């Protein structure tokens, strides 16, 4: 399946979401320079976004295409590289930027930051600092939907995003088995950007990859060009429709590419520049924009979509910058109810 099959208005909406993600990541990247010591970089004190910041630049088509078919009652878990998923699930862009800036007005009141972005109000149950750890949580959310079927949204589903490197952690396999054994309404999405931190995933992964592993556990699985937002959307649509009908879990393997380093301060010196150059030829935003133009939207219109996204993000940055830090006391609230106040 490819872009050509989807209606213009849908492609336009997908493109708008991709632009918002791209603009968000670009702004976060700038705000994070000097934000953490790694890859030979020192941490400065001037960065607005501190700590490890994992950018999904270049991977926007996957969350945009998948989440177009999700509803607020559907649950999602994500990874350390979760801004795109969060936005695409419908979370407020400014709330996320405020959280990256560590402000009281962020989604987590400044307690979590980029690796712990979450917006439970739209079903986004959390990014995760531990590779593959979000997968079993989504399994539980999917099982909960089944168990609580009478409680309102019987055809809700859960979706879990994870990377190509994550498929080599045990919880991935455990979760495939579990989801299939209980026939849970769960979509696994392997967002395959070909890299695991500084390591090419290929050499570390035996066999035919995520889809083959899923099939071996009895799941339906599809592989798709993850830079073709139309293809992602159409494939996800079909899989999600089946899941909603109770046909059990499925896996979507989307091939894409990580344009940036592992974290925002990583210059990715270990990577052949040609590989990046080649990948940039398949920038999912460029591909989608080209298609929109083919379909008759004029260039200025297309540009205005990105322009609007950049403006939205700039406003978010400005407001995040001006927002208040959490009270120091917030370090000691929302920990637990029993024994609250007993720190020592």
């Amino acid at each position: 399946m490819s872009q050509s099959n989807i209606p213009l208005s849908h492609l336009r909406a997908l493109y708008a979401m991709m632009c918002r993600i791209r603009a968000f990541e670009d702004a976060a990247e700038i705000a994070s320079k000097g934000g953490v010591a790694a890859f030979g970089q020192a941490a400065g004190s001037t960065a607005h976004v501190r700590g490890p910041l994992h950018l999904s630049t270049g991977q926007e088509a996957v969350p945009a295409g998948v989440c177009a078919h999700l509803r607020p009652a559907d649950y999602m878990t994500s990874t350390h590289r979760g801004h795109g998923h969060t936005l695409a699930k419908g979370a407020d862009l400014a709330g996320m930027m405020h959280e990256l800036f560590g402000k009281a007005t962020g989604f987590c009141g400044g307690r979590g930051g980029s690796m712990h972005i979450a917006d439970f109000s739209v079903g986004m149950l959390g990014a995760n600092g531990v590779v593959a750890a979000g997968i079993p949580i989504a399994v539980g959310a999917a099982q909960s939907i089944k168990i609580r079927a009478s409680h309102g949204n019987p055809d809700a589903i859960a979706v879990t995003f994870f990377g190509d490197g994550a498929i080599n952690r045990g919880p991935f396999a455990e979760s495939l088995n579990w989801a299939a054994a209980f026939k849970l309404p769960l979509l696994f999405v392997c967002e395959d950007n070909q890299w695991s931190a500084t390591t090419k995933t290929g050499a570390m992964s035996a066999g035919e990859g995520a889809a083959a592993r899923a099939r071996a556990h009895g799941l339906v699985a599809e592989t798709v060009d993850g830079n073709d937002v139309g293809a992602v959307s159409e494939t996800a649509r079909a899989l999600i429709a089946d899941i909603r009908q109770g046909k059990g879990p499925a896996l979507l393997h989307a091939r894409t590419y990580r344009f940036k380093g592992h974290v925002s301060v990583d210059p990715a010196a270990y990577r052949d520049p040609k590989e990046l150059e080649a990948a940039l030829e398949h920038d999912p935003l460029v591909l989608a924009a080209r298609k929109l133009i083919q379909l008759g939207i004029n260039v200025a219109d297309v540009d205005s979509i990105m322009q609007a996204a950049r403006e939205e993000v700039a406003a978010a940055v400005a407001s995040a910058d001006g927002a208040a830090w959490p009270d120091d006391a917030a370090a000691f609230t929302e920990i637990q109810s029993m024994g609250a106040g007993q720190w020592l």
Partner: protein
Amino acid sequence: MAVMTYAAAAASALNDAMRADPAIVALGEDLGRGGIFGQYAGLLAAFGPERVIDTPISEATIVGAAVGMALTGLKPVVEMRVIDFALCAMDEIVNQAAKNRFMFGGQGRVPAVIRMPIGVWTSSAAQHSQSLESWFAHVPGLVVLAPATPQDNHALLKAAIACGDPVAYFEHKELWPLQGEVDADQRTEIGKAAIRRVGSDITIVSWSKAVHWSLEAAEALAAEGIQAEMIDLRTIWPWDRDAVFASAAKTGHVLIAHEAVQAAGFGAEIAATLAEAGNAKLARLGAKRAPVGYAPNLEAAVRVTPAVIAAKARALLGR
């Protein structure tokens, strides 16, 4: 009032709780046949396989899934069989269940009870005999319970399920067959110790199976004219400092006895707390029992710093 075993008391408490609240589910290996020790006896028949869930041998996913269930409106009771196997799910317990509420700024709650039986159990050797409760006391976000009697296993299991926090719940493998009276309506507050024996000469603080040994020891001492006061802590975190300090003030002597390895066991925490309070020349400084926050001020708020160290040193020296 009925006489039942420690295992049956747990099954009965869970039965009561599940009957009262449809959000409660139980999951783990072999639950359908009542559990290897009968601690889930009768529950499958009463509540069906959607609420009494037999799982694959996938400890990481058992706890991970429980976190997902808890975040979405259920109250899972999770069976790990023995604490030793819970080591296969430590990321899920410590990084996910315990920290979720804080990391996400209070958006999520993980009302999950994770049952991890501790203790030596008739020649089951090094991989089935550990007692690791002190690990969990060290982890912000967790409540830590260790009942010693059928009555407490009934009442504390209910309290654990109801409390809304993730609970590390430690039954003891050698206590499963212990018989005792159980009043199903009795409530036991989390954080309150039980004085199992009143005495004036020495305070013995203990929990879990070691409570019974301590009581046995107290009887032997009584025969020699030594009256031991025996405190069953029951809650390891938040532990009942008031009860321990009051008894210590009365008897002037405190012995803490537990089955776990002594080195870095939870007895050290109690002893250190008593020592610091009673001795102006000894102090500890460590991070607050809080997860580390992201915003720079939140991160700084829990840390030990040179200024804090210097201040504490001055205080110790009375300057």
